[in-house]
C-alpha cells in the first residue's frame, strides 16, 4: 500500500463525510425558497413573449451564461482542431 493510496484514501473518506451530510440535510421536492423561480414562471410570457420558462432562462434572463457556454463549445472545437493539426492524409 504505497503512501499515495493511503493519502488518497484518507482524503476520500473526509470528502465522503461531507457529501453524505449534505445528502441528508437537503429535503427533496420541497425547495426552501422559490421567489426567483416563481417570478420567472409568472413573467416569462409577459416580459419575453416565450411560452417555455426554461428557454427564457437560457436565452434571456441568463443569456450571458449561454454566451459563455457557446464559447466553451467553440474553445473545445478549436482545442481539438489544434491538437490534431498534424493529421494530414
Amino acid at each position: 500500500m504505497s503512501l499515495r493510496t493511503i493519502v488518497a484514501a484518507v482524503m476520500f473518506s473526509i470528502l465522503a463525510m461531507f457529501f453524505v451530510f449534505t445528502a441528508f440535510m437537503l429535503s427533496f421536492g420541497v425547495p426552501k425558497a422559490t421567489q426567483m423561480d416563481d417570478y420567472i414562471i409568472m413573467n416569462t410570457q409577459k416580459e419575453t413573449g416565450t411560452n417555455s420558462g426554461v428557454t427564457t432562462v437560457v436565452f434571456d434572463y441568463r443569456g450571458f451564461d449561454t454566451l459563455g457556454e457557446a464559447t466553451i463549445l467553440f474553445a473545445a472545437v478549436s482545442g481539438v482542431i489544434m491538437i490534431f493539426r498534424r493529421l494530414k492524409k
Partner: protein
Amino acid sequence: MNFLEFTPPLIVAIPLFGAFLTPIISKINEKARNIFAILILLITACLVFLLTQDVFTNGPRTYIFGDSNLAIPVVRILFEVDGMSMFMAIISITLALLGVIYSWSYMKENDGLDKYYTLVLLLVASMLGMEFTGDLFNFFVFLEISCITSCALIAFYVNKGESLEAAFKYIVISSIGALFVLFAVGLFYAQYNALNMATIASVLSFGFLDKIALVLLIAALGMKAGLAPMHMWLPDSYGEAPASVTFILVAATQASLYGVLRILFTVYGNAFTNIASVFSSAIIHWFIIGLALITILIGVIMALIQTDFKRLIAFAAVAEIGYIFLGIGVGLTSLGVGYGKTALEGGVFHIMNDAFDIGLLFLVAGAVYYATKETSLNKMGGLARNMKYTAIFFIVGLLAVSGLPPFNGFVSKLLIYESTFQLNPIIAIIAILASILLLAIFVKVFYSVFMGPELPKLKDVKEVPKSMLVAMGAIVVIIIIFGLFPNLIINNIVQPATNALINSSSYISKVLSVVI
C-alpha cells in the same frame, strides 16, 4: 447614459468577439491575424484603464444584462465591478497584451497558429469575465472556459510527450475542482434560491451547509490558484507550455486566486464579522496561514533540486503564491485592525508584483529556449556574451522575485513580513529564510545559464528578436517604477482594492439598493 455605463460588458465582449473573428481573419494572412489580436487587446486595455480610473474614484459599478431595471428577486446576470476586480483586471490585461506581443516572434516557426491566437483571446476573455462577474454560476462558467483553453494551450507542443501529460493532469484536476465549485453553487441555490453573490452575501446564515460550501470553494479555488496540497499540476503545466502561454497562465491562476478573495471577503464577509463565531473563523485563518507556509516551503525546497529551467521558475511561482496566501491569511485574522490591514495590502500588492516578476522570468526562460533550444540548466553556459539584454532582464527578474530593495518584490514582502511578525514571529522568520533561499537558487541559476565558459555548441547564439525584447523591457520598466515609487502605487492602486475587499457592505448595498 454616458460611455462608462456599458464598459464592463464591452471589456469581456470585445475579446470574445475577436476570438470568434480570428479564424476568419487568419484566412487573409499571418500578419493580419497577429495585428488583429494585438488591436483587440489594445482596445480592451484602454477600456480597462478608463474604467479603473472611474471605479477607483466613485465606488463599485454594476451592469445588468438584458434589461436596465432590476427585477425584485435578482433574476438577471449582474456584472459587479469594484476596486478589487479592477486591480486584477489591470494585471490580466497587461500580462495578456505583453504575452501576445511576445508570442508574435516567439511562435513564428510553429504551425496551427490561428487556433493558438483564438484560444489566447478566449483565455483573456474568460479571465476578465471571472474578475467582473457578480454571479456565482457565471463565475463557474468562466472558470471552466479558462480551464479548457489553458489545457488546450498547454498541449500546444503535440509531439512532445511531457506536454501532453501535463495537459492531461491539468484538465483532470481542474475539471474535478470546477465540479466541486458547481456543487457549492448548487448548495447556495438550494438554500437561498439566489445565484447573485451580493444577494447570497446579504442573506447568508452560515449554517452547516454553508460551512461545507465554504470548504468546497476554498479547496477547489485554492487548488486552481496553486495552494500547497494540490499544486502538482502547476510545475508540470508551467514547465511544459510555451513561454508566452505560461506568461498568460500566471494571470489565469491569479484570476482564481481573486475568486478565493471574493468568496472569503464578500460572500462570507459579514458572516465572519457579525456572527461572532470566533471559533470557526479562527480555524479558517490559521488553516490558510498553515497552507501558505507549506506552499512556501514546498516551492523553495523543490526549486533547489530542479535541473529544468522552466520547472525551477514554476516552483518559485508556487512559493510566491504561498507568500500571497500568507498575506491574506494574516490579513483575515484581524480585519481592518492595524497589522491586519497592512498584511492584506502586502498580500494584494504582492499579487501584482508576483505576476510581473514571475512573468518576466518565464519570458527570459522562453528567450533562452528560443535562442538555444535548450531547457536543462547543465547544458547551457556563457550566454551572457551574446545575449546581453536577456541577461540584464534576468538579473532584474531574480532580484525582484527574491525581494531585494530597489525592486517591487521588496515592497510587498516587507509589508507581509512586518505584519506576520506582529502576529507570530516564527512564521515571519520562516518566510524570510525561504525568500533568502530563493535568492540563492536564482543566483546559482544565473551563473549556470549566463556566466561560465563559452560552450562550443552555443557559439553562434544570437540575441532574441525585437518583439520579445520589447515585451521583456516593458515589464522591467514596470518593475522598476513600482520599486522606486511604492507609495505612489500603494495609495492609488492597492488601497482602493483592499478597501473594496474589507468593507464588503458597499459591494452588497450597490446591488440591494438598486433592487429596493
